[in-house]
């Protein structure tokens, strides 16, 4: 088991290197530079700036400068926000995204699994149909549609919640982003849980547990839940990626000041180091999360041996 975990983490390193390389060269092949603007700088000044950021050297040299900095944990200076390093900017905005993400994730998991189990246990009842109807609706309502609808309902028609902003993460500012992000995952998770729960409840060991006369809650929580969770766990990897991606919309729409906003602005303004920094961060998290899901899978499923 430990060797498996170690192997899984070691495998992440080349993947990460490829990710860094590809995004670095993609970003640097973009036309325009961070300092090209409407009002042209005097050529001497531009040359000085370029020299300071190594922009006058071949791209391959810049790549090694960047890798060198990265090894020391330095993501470089921002080309757009004066006097800020990328580390500082990400340090400011990442906690916001992380907080929204974690809440959305928890909400999606708890409500999704709960709804799925209820629907499975009352299969083909009105409860089942309404949960599954909601699940179908949730899948087709993307977060960028839910975000404006939430604002319309909660802030414009009824002045219940502030339409945007962050305010240090006070809960009224958190509600709408979490709704917008988690709904489609609630739907997916409910659907997956229902399917696997129905299958599990029909299997032989559940019949044995029933025959033993175990009370229903123990059958469900002790015997059925664990195998039924396997497909849900394998969905968590993609769900995590989706939530990170979705945070871009939420940041842009609700103005929470999370990491997505920086990414979009960075991409539009050719802020190389900002885009690189966010991509590396998200890539690392994605790889990490996929590894965690694999490890969890091995822990929960006794059939898998490494």
């Amino acid at each position, binding site marked *: 088991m430990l060797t498996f975990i170690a192997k899984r983490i070691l495998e*992440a390193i*080349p*993947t990460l290197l*490829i*990710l860094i390389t*590809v*995004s670095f060269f*993609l*970003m640097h*092949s*973009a*036309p325009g530079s961070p300092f090209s603007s409407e009002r042209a700088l005097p050529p001497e000044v531009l040359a000085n700036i370029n020299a300071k950021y190594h922009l006058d050297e071949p791209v391959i040299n810049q790549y090694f400068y960047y890798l060198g900095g990265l090894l020391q944990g330095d993501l470089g200076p921002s080309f757009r926000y004066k006097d800020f390093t990328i580390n500082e900017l990400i340090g400011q905005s990442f906690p916001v995204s992380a907080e929204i993400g974690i809440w959305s994730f928890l909400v999606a998991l708890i409500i999704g699994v709960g709804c799925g189990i209820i629907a499975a246990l009352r299969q083909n009842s009105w409860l089942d149909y309404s949960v599954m109807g909601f699940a*179908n*609706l949730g*899948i*087709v*309502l*993307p977060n*960028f*549609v839910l*975000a*404006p609808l939430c*604002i*319309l309902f909660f802030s*414009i028609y009824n002045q219940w919640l502030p339409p945007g902003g962050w305010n240090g993460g006070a809960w009224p500012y958190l509600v709408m982003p979490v709704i917008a992000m988690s709904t489609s995952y609630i739907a997916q998770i409910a659907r997956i849980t229902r399917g696997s729960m129905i299958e599990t409840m029909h299997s032989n060991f559940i019949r044995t547990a029933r025959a033993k006369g175990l009370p229903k809650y123990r059958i469900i929580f002790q015997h059925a839940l664990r195998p039924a969770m396997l497909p849900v766990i394998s969905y968590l990897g993609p769900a995590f*990626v989706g939530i*990170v*991606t979705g945070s*871009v*919309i939420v940041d*842009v*729409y609700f103005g929470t000041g999370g990491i997505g906003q920086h*990414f*979009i602005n960075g*991409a*539009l303004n*050719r802020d190389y180091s900002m*885009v690189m920094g*966010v*991509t590396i961060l*998200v*890539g690392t998290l*994605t*790889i990490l999360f*996929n590894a965690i899901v694999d490890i969890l899978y091995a822990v929960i499923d006794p059939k898998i041996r490494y």
Partner: protein
Amino acid sequence: MITSKDKIQAVEQFAEKVVEVEGRSLWQDARRRFFSNHAAVSSLIILLLITAIALLGPLFSQWNYDDIDWEALSDISTLGRPNIENSHYFGTDTLGRDIFVRTMQGGQISLLVGIMGSIVAIVIGTLYGAASGYIGGRVDSVMMRFLEILNSFPFMFFVIILMTLFGRHIFLIFVAIGAISWLDMARIVRGQTLSLKNKEYIEAAYACGVSTPKIILRHIVPNVLGIVVVYATLLVPNMILLESFISFLGLGVQEPMTSWGALISEGAQNMEIAIWQLAWPLGFLVVTLFCFNFLGDGLRDALDPKDR
């Protein structure tokens, strides 16, 4: 053994009369199952209707998608309302352009992106998966390793970088979206190929000296087509969503062309005064996505009965 002639004749006559029992192919079975699924069939009809409106609708309006109605422009919140008389059936946007025609034009783009993107993803994914599964061995493990590496890339971020690099060319949107969505398809097709690989007819083809690319194209691919069709239908709504997502961020199609995502983004900015700008494209998008999901589920039940 002696058999009398008339007996043989009787048997022959009997054989002539017996109607041959017709075998039903997988596709015939699937068609029957599909057409008995009301949700899927009505989804298909609605989708065909939406496509027809998106293609033909603009012909029935006096406006073009980039025409500006200067009269309505003076007061969008009253003159720009949905109105049959001035032929703005769905109202106008903030620039006085007709929402009906723009929604239809956006629909063309969204559906086109959805379908083209899926085709790109299917072609790459099917060929990659079939090749990897059929060739097997070291090639397979290298190809699968590559897939795993790609799988841990934050692809949405890559698409955004690509869009900023190469500009908002509609063709690039297809390719970019399609090229990142083939991973699941490849994995599914590989799994199917592994189980097909040892079938007798593949062995027979191999024994006849058919080359590997030909075996993959002529014998493997047609046999995984069922599952490919199912996942293709489920891919289309994802593609439309992705495109809308990109357009929503303002990185999608170039003005004055539009797509549902771009229209929703514009509409959301003005929803306080002009809700119709949000409502129409939103309604079309949601109904389309709904129908594709039902259609995909119906096809899955029809073509892949064990996976329920």
